[in-house]
C-alpha cells in the first residue's frame, strides 16, 4: 500500500490527473524521448554490471528460459481470448496479443525501483531476461496473424532484422554489454548520471507517461468494454503465472515479482513500431490504447503491489 505513495507513482498520478482535467501541461516530445533513452541506457548498464559481478549462473539460465517460454506462450492464449471474448478479427487479435507477450521496459523499471526501495531487489540478470523477452512475441504474433502459415522467407527475415534493430532493443542490449565490459569499477565515473540521477529522472518520465497514457485513453476510439476488461485481466493472469513459474524455478521474492511484472506488462515501444511495419492494417490506436492506457497504469498502481504480495505468498 505504501508503495502507492512513492514519488514515482505520485508523479504518474499527477500526470494522469492533469491530462484527464484537460490541463495544457505537456512535456516537449524530445524530452520524453530523451528520458526514455536515458532510462534504457541506465537500466542496461546496471544489468550488465550486476551480471559482470555475479557471473552467468544457473538462476540466470532458468529465469531466461522461463521468460522466453512465457513470451512465446502468452500471445497464443491472449490471441484465443481476444478472438472469442474480445471479438477482434485475427489481424487485430494477433497484433494485440504480441504486445502482451512482450514486455514494458518502464513498468519493469518502476517495479524494480519499488522492489529495491522495499528491500527486495530483483537479481541483476532480470534485465537480461527483460531484453530477451522484448522481441520473440512479435514473431509469434505474426504467425498467429497468418493463421499459422509462415511468412514469405524474405519479408520475414527483413522484419526480424528491423525488430532486432529497433532502437530500444539495441540500446538496452548495447548498454548491457557495455556494463558487462566495464564492470563496477569502470562504472564509477559515470554513476552520478546513470545511478544517482536515476530515481529523480524516473519521476519526471512517469509524470510524462501519466500525461501520455491518460491523453491516449481520452481520445481512444475503438475501445470496447470487453477489450478494456481483457487489458486488466491479462496482466492479472499473466502476472500470476509469472509468480508461479518464478516460485517453481526457485527464484527469490524480488526476482519472482520481477518475472511476474515482465509477464504481466505489455510493450508500447518496440512492438507497436514492429506491428506498424508488419501488420499495417491492424489498428494502432487499439493496441496502443490497451497496452499503454489501460494495462500500463493498472500495473503501475495496482499490479506491482499485487504481484509482490503473490510472490511473498508463493516463494
Amino acid at each position, binding site marked *: 500500500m505504501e508503495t502507492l505513495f512513492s514519488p514515482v507513482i505520485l508523479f504518474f498520478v499527477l500526470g494522469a490527473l492533469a491530462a484527464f482535467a484537460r490541463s495544457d501541461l505537456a512535456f516537449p*516530445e*524530445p524530452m*520524453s*524521448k530523451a528520458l*526514455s533513452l536515458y532510462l534504457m541506457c541506465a537500466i542496461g548498464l546496471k544489468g550488465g554490471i550486476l551480471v559482470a559481478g555475479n557471473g552467468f549462473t544457473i538462476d540466470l539460465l532458468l529465469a531466461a528460459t522461463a521468460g522466453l517460454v512465457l513470451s512465446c506462450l502468452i500471445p497464443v492464449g491472449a490471441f484465443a481470448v481476444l478472438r472469442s471474448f474480445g471479438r477482434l478479427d485475427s489481424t487485430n487479435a494477433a497484433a494485440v496479443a504480441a504486445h502482451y507477450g512482450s514486455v514494458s521496459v518502464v513498468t519493469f523499471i518502476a517495479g524494480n525501483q519499488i522492489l529495491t526501495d522495499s528491500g527486495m531487489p530483483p537479481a541483476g540478470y532480470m534485465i537480461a531476461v527483460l531484453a530477451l523477452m522484448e522481441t520473440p512475441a512479435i514473431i509469434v504474433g505474426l504467425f498467429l496473424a497468418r493463421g499459422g502459415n509462415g511468412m514469405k522467407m524474405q519479408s520475414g527475415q527483413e522484419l526480424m532484422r528491423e525488430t532486432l534493430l*529497433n532502437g*530500444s532493443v539495441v540500446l538496452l542490449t548495447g548498454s548491457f554489454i557495455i556494463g558487462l565490459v566495464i564492470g563496477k569499477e569502470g562504472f564509477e565515473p559515470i554513476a552520478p548520471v546513470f545511478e544517482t540521477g536515476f530515481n529523480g529522472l524516473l519521476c519526471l518520465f512517469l509524470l*510524462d*507517461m501519466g500525461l*501520455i497514457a491518460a*491523453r*491516449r485513453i481520452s*481520445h*481512444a*476510439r*475503438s475501445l470496447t468494454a470487453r477489450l478494456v476488461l481483457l487489458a486488466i485481466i491479462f496482466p492479472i493472469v499473466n502476472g500470476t503465472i509469472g509468480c508461479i513459474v518464478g516460485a517453481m524455478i526457485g527464484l527469490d521474492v524480488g526476482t519472482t515479482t520481477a518475472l511476474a511484472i515482465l509477464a504481466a506488462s505489455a510493450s*508500447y*515501444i*518496440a*512492438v*507497436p*513500431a*514492429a*506491428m*506498424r*511495419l508488419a501488420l*499495417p*492494417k491492424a*489498428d*494502432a*490506436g487499439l493496441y*496502443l490504447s490497451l497496452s*499503454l492506457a489501460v494495462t500500463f497504469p493498472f500495473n503501475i498502481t495496482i499490479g506491482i503491489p499485487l504481484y509482490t504480495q503473490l510472490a511473498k505468498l508463493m516463494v
Partner: protein
Amino acid sequence: MVTKSPRKKIEILVDTPLLRRLREVAEGVEADGYTVQRTQGGEGSRGRWFDDQVTGGAGSKVVFTTILDDATTDHLLQALEPLIDEYGLLVTVSDVDLVRAQKDQAG
C-alpha cells in the same frame, strides 16, 4: 531573370515507422529528391493523435514532400497505390512552379 518550370508537389502524411518504405518507393521511381518534416498531431477517422516520440513511432507521423515532373508523378502514384490503403497514407498533389536561376537554365 529567373525561369519557372511547372511541377507537381506530392505531399504524403505517413507514420514514422513506414517512412523507410516510402523512401524506397521514391527511389524506385527515381524521384529527384524529397524533404521530410515532423508533425505535432492531428485527427482523422481513426481518432486523434499526438506525436509523443515515445510509443515506438507508432504514434508519430511525418510529412514527406517531393517535387516531380508529370511523368515521375504518375510513376510515383502508381507505385504508391498498394500502400495508400494498407499504410493509411494521406496523399495530395498540387501544382507549383519550380524556380531556377536563368544562367542555370543556360548551363
